[in-house]
């Protein structure tokens, strides 16, 4: 069996780079719903982090192994009881929030386990999505590629919605990045023009 090295994720995934910019070198990371492990591998290679991914899907688990990252097979919906409080510098939830049932629960667990939380999600408030809803259809877009009947995304939200949830969960937002569908920064009317949102937050003391 030959292991062909994966192409640099930086080229493929500007969203990885956006997260990496927030990570202090050498940090301890927990990546929830880590998929094939490429974000964690990217952070290991570019930020020298130590960490673990959490993933439920067997196929993804195998890809994580092949990416050489630590991964714990676990259902995020059941919480993070294997992880001690305050045991990570950052807990990341990259494009997974919208597919979780227990949205509040996972934010609270992130605040318990990590010093800081980082969440990224597709902005349902983007004007293209709004247009599709006005035209009478559930949105299908680059960041929301599924049809209403086969989507894993059950808890879609807008930037404003997420900020409200943070308020409710006693999470203080430290930084926000909003990107267009071309991964360009969006500063003007982000809740309308942004396609991808990134938040860095901590527990309000």
């Amino acid at each position, binding site marked *: *069996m030959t*292991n062909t090295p994966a192409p640099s994720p930086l080229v493929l995934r500007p969203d990885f780079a956006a997260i990496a910019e927030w990570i202090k070198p050498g940090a*301890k990371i927990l990546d929830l719903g880590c998929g094939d492990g490429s974000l964690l591998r990217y952070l290991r290679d570019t930020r020298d982090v*130590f960490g*673990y991914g959490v993933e439920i899907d*067997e*196929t993804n*688990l*195998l890809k*994580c*192994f*092949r990416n*050489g990252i*630590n*991964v*714990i*097979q*676990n259902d995020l919906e059941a919480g993070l009881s*294997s*992880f*001690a409080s305050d*045991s990570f510098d950052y807990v990341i939830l990259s494009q997974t929030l919208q597919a979780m049932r227990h949205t509040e629960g996972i934010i609270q667990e992130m605040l318990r386990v990590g010093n800081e939380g980082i969440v990224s999600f597709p902005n349902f408030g983007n004007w293209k999505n709004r247009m599709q809803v006005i035209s009478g259809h559930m949105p299908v877009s680059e960041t929301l590629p599924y049809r209403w009947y086969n989507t894993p995304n059950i808890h879609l939200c807008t930037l404003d919605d997420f900020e409200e949830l943070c308020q409710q969960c006693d999470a203080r937002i430290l930084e926000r990045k909003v990107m267009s569908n071309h991964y360009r920064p969006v500063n003007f009317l982000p809740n309308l023009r942004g396609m991808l949102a990134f938040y860095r937050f901590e527990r309000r003391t």
Partner: protein
Amino acid sequence: MQESKSVGVVTPQYVQIDKPLQLKSGLSLESYHLVYETYGQLNAAHSNAILICHALSGNHHVAGVYAGNEKSVGWWDNMVGPGKPIDTDRFFVIGVNNLGGCHGSTGPASIDPRTGKQYGASFPVVTVEDWVEAQAQLAEHLGIEQFSAIVGGSLGGMQAMQWTLDYPEKVRHALVIAAAPKLTAQNIAFNDVARQAIMTDQEFYGGNFYAYDTLPRRGLRLARMLGHITYLSDDSMAAKFGRSLRKGELSFGFDVEFEIESYLRYQGDKFADLFDANSYLLMTKALDYFDPAAAYGGDLSAAFRAAKANFLVVSFTSDWRFSPQRSQEIVKALLDNELSVSYAEISSSHGHDSFLMEPSCYHQLVRAYMDNITI
């Protein structure tokens, strides 16, 4: 994909160790021998060695076959071999029979040099720690200062863990499969029923049955039948046997009627012919006593403070003897110590015995993990 093959014909080897072994019980063995097998080649740097630790009824014959007996396939032949998940083209793999066993290493049926007679009941109770110590002597004999990995399922996984605690510098990776950090009361209860079955057999003679030229076959058979039930799952038994009848109809008697009865009796008979009753008692005691957290007030995380290895922990969904929750306890302790660990909970209907089979992506995961080990 590379083709996987058998390691082919293998021959057991013996090592005599004359350095006394201080046992956890306070007793000691002045000298002993171990039987082992090796597969693959030890590289020049001696950096590609892998130790396979066996479970309750296992032994040193992990892979390959014995000359002239093509049915004598090693117990983990699907895992170990050229091109297999534990690839003997890359690694030098060692299987060893533990002390107290009945496949060639010093055990209850061996001659006690102090008396010139078989040990029988006087063979000391050995623990997982004692086994690790004896295995370390074998490693020294083979010139291995550090293992690439130590691998074990069930009781074997306990030995892999113990290695990382007793010799943290000598283990780079530990693969702990279908194991537990300690037995539950239910587990100990099963073991004790098995022991009672053996010890109350009239042919047992307090463990000295060798002198009477007999075997406590009935007791050992019952012990194995009970154990075997706990290694399977309700679902796998239902799928394999269901309520099938041997003769297709009820016979309103107490002879073998259901297929499951026939199967268990066959397994029990086969085992009673091959295994030593005293060894069975010793193996179950080693299981019962294993509890690395005990010395730390029950704090498993504290027990693992010494460990330095990278870990792969694997459990199987239908394993109720050593359930996934037990493996998660191990994982938690490793996470608390910031050790490198990956954990897989494999979907399988085969119960505890899953670790010997190839359910779902189990072998692919082990292969991927092993591929990442540098030598």
